[in-house]
């Protein structure tokens, strides 16, 4: 999509309500609000589940939590082993926060030119924050397992000529992790903005396409949350893997 076209359709791209805060620089206030909202929803749902949790027949909310927690636990247990059980809360938190953040944009905002509440995942700040956090944690785990020398040795694994590629491969991990989420959600917002910007005589098509697109966008939200959590576990696995290289 060419930015000129987006400009003609008056579609905001990377447009945020900002504020300058000393020490932190520019803050995207809207992203912070929506992220906080997503966080509160996740914590609220967790609290509600905790209050109502039963060892008997679980309700839908408890079942959702149990399904996610047990499948993440299984993944961690089989890929990383019981020593890395602390990765479970990380992956579960990432999954739920990203999922709720993605789903915040469920309402297309007719009068907003884009989604009613744009997802905070459509802002690189949240995506990078999570991606770089995972990168730092996995790198730390790798150094803990292999030692500093062992960690850097894997950049020089054979063929040594590929050293630059190995470095780029490693640095690309947090970047791709963050940008994958960002791109998908950002594109979802632009799709809605495009559909809303249809001229009045195409308003029926606009509504129909929006109704078709939105559920798909929600599905993308689930997939992205799932991929982010899964890749977190897999990056841990690559990081602590001492055999083969």
């Amino acid at each position, binding site marked *: 999509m060419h930015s000129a076209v987006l400009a003609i359709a008056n579609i905001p791209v990377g447009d945020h309500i900002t504020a300058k805060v000393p020490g932190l620089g520019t803050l995207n206030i809207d992203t912070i609000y929506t992220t906080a909202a997503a966080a509160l929803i996740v914590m609220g749902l967790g609290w509600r589940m905790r209050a109502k949790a039963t060892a008997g027949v679980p309700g839908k909310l408890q079942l959702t939590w149990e399904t996610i*927690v047990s499948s993440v636990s299984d993944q961690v247990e089989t890929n990383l082993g019981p020593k890395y059980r602390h990765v479970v809360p990380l992956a*579960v938190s990432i999954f739920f926060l990203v999922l709720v953040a993605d789903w915040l944009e469920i309402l297309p905002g007719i009068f907003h030119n884009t989604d009613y509440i744009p997802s905070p995942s459509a802002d690189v700040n949240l995506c990078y924050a999570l991606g770089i956090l995972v990168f730092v944690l996995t790198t730390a785990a790798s150094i803990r397992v292999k030692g500093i020398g062992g960690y850097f040795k894997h950049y020089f694994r054979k063929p040594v000529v590929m050293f630059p590629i190995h470095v780029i491969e490693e640095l690309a991990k947090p970047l791709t992790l963050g940008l994958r989420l960002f791109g998908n959600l950002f594109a979802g917002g632009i799709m809605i903005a495009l559909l809303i910007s249809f001229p009045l005589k195409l308003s029926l098509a606009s509504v129909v396409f929006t109704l078709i697109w939105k559920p798909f966008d929600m599905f993308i939200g689930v997939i992205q949350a799932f991929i982010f959590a899964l890749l977190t576990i897999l990056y841990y696995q690559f990081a602590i893997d001492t055999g083969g290289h």
Partner: protein
Amino acid sequence: MKAVFASNFLVPNGTFIVELVIFFLVLGFLARYVLPRVNEVMDERQNTIRQALSDAEEAKRRSEEAETEYRKAMDEARTQARQLVEEANRLGEDLRNQSRERAEAEYQRIIARAQGDIDSSARRAAEELRGQMGDLVVTVVERVIGQAMDQAAQKALIDRTIGEVEREAGADNGAGNAGASR
């Protein structure tokens, strides 16, 4: 305070730190309050299920034991019943054998007594016959020779005659018995 393209939207700004802080809050909350509870109820449920399974296993084992005992008791009862029947049969057989033996003995006794009677009668008859035959022989001989015989001669004659007669009678008897047994 809108800033369209104020900076490249792919470059993060200070929001990054705030997002990180929010995420840590969520992570801490879930790790502290939510996940332990989820794991707790899941463990509890698993224990309940495991308990139910082991109970069912126990019940099955008990019912199998009961069945085994029942079968054993049935087998024992059957064996006992068979033994009782055999015992009864054996007793019946014994009783039959005993009465048969008693009857046989009685029969033999009667036969023996009858045989004894017959023998003694025969002996008496033979004695009588022998006495009469002695007198007859002496009388006939005295008539033939025309004089009386002395005591010793009479005895010798009688003995010789009776001995011959008995020999002949014995030979006849043997032939007669052989004929009768055929």
